């Protein structure tokens, strides 16, 4: 934690505001975001303290938290914030910054799931569930969770053995490439 409450370094808060398009510095700690958050019981930092730590420039504490990866993007905080802060977009911005700055992510399952999911979309134009799940399991090392559900899902036609490709899959690879370039310019 900072030893002073003065805003000594505004770089971090400005960056988070720019990326999220939200006036994070307007947060006055009413805690509505934290009290309505469905995943608060599992979080190491609640949403409102995260806003305060962003004010204080505590980049490492925020970007290395588990909390930013436990946000389910349900938008309850965004809907209820009296200052118009899109707190869910703030969480998105923090996750992207954590990946870009290569900080030590304490629980990388979310990041690994995202990569597996988007890899599937990049390849097929749509999500191929079985391939995506296999990729995620290999990346995370979490090989056995939910395997009990596979036979039932297969029997009920809820996962298929072959991908359903979009005719736009080829064009989508170019779109992914250009989006990556544009992300770098942001």
């Amino acid at each position, binding site marked *: 934690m900072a030893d002073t409450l003065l805003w000594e370094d505004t770089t971090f808060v400005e960056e988070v505001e720019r990326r999220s398009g939200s006036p994070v510095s307007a947060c006055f700690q009413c805690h509505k975001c934290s009290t309505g958050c469905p995943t608060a019981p599992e979080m190491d930092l609640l949403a409102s303290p995260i806003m305060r730590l962003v004010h204080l420039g505590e980049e490492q504490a925020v970007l290395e938290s588990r909390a930013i990866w436990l946000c389910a*993007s*349900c938008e309850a905080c*965004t*809907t209820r914030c009296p200052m118009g802060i899109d707190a*869910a977009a703030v969480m998105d911005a923090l996750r992207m910054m954590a990946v870009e700055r290569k900080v030590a992510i304490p629980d990388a399952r979310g990041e690994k799931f995202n990569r597996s999911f988007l890899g599937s979309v990049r390849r097929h134009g749509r999500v191929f569930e079985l391939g995506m799940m296999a990729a995620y399991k290999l990346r995370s090392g979490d090989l056995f969770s939910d395997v009990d559900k596979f036979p039932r899902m297969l029997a009920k036609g809820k996962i298929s053995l072959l991908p359903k490709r979009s005719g736009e899959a080829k064009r*989508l690879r170019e779109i992914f490439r*250009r989006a990556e370039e544009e992300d770098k310019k942001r």
Partner: protein
Amino acid sequence: MKYAYFPGCSLESTAWDFDRSTRAVSRALDVELEEIPDWVCCGSTPAHTTSASLATALPVVNLQKAHAMGLPVMTACASCYARLRTANHKIRNDPEERARTQRITQQAYDGGVPVRHVLDVLVNDVGTAEIRHRVKRPLTGLRVACYYGCLLTRPPEVVAFDDPEHPRSMEDLLEAVGAEPVEWPLKTECCGASLSMTHAGVVGRLSHKLISMAREAGAECLAVACPLCQVNLDLRQADAGKAHGDLPDTPALYVTQLLGLALGLAPKQLGLEALTVSADSLLTGTGLAMGDLTG
């Protein structure tokens, strides 16, 4: 009434029953759906938490196709719905985002294609009066907890076909077909959504809270309108019971499946066999005509 239909990836796999029942009730109510040719994934949560550029570009590829079809879009997945609407919102309000998305997709788009959720189309375009008229087998006595989850009604600047804290459209729809929606306080609480893959324990806790509260309010089943909610409440229901205390079997049906039953469609036409927690006993226990339902 004609729409460019965007099924989305879940409706091709884990939620094929949502796709089947959406198409079946649309047909029964003279809502014409033309699937967007070669649609691509909307990017869902992984895109908006990973790449701001991709999160807008992927939905826009589909919206550009719908624009070429000259039709408003209808989708059933709550996540696709939110992503498509969010992309429109960004394109309309941020000229930089619009220029960037044009560079990425190499096509212009002005954010003008309307995006509707099937629930919105049913309640506001077809209308509950018309639907009441078409009922063949009223769901009399069926006590149902309508569950909206997060993305159908939030954030209100982006979605906005119902109240973000106390939506009523699903209750209005199911009341029109004879069911008895219960009042309960958690209808817009999140089920954990895509944490399902990575943090199943969190989802188990939330699903348990939702199902037990629905039961406490007197419901015998849940009506849902999102593929993620359905998986978390149905496929994960047994795990939730094991981890947090026994739950009575509580079927979680898509609102289109319940509506389809009331319109006289057969369970197979609505994909009821895909439910993990079967709805058979529930439906035989009500005033619904038995023979038709088990066929």
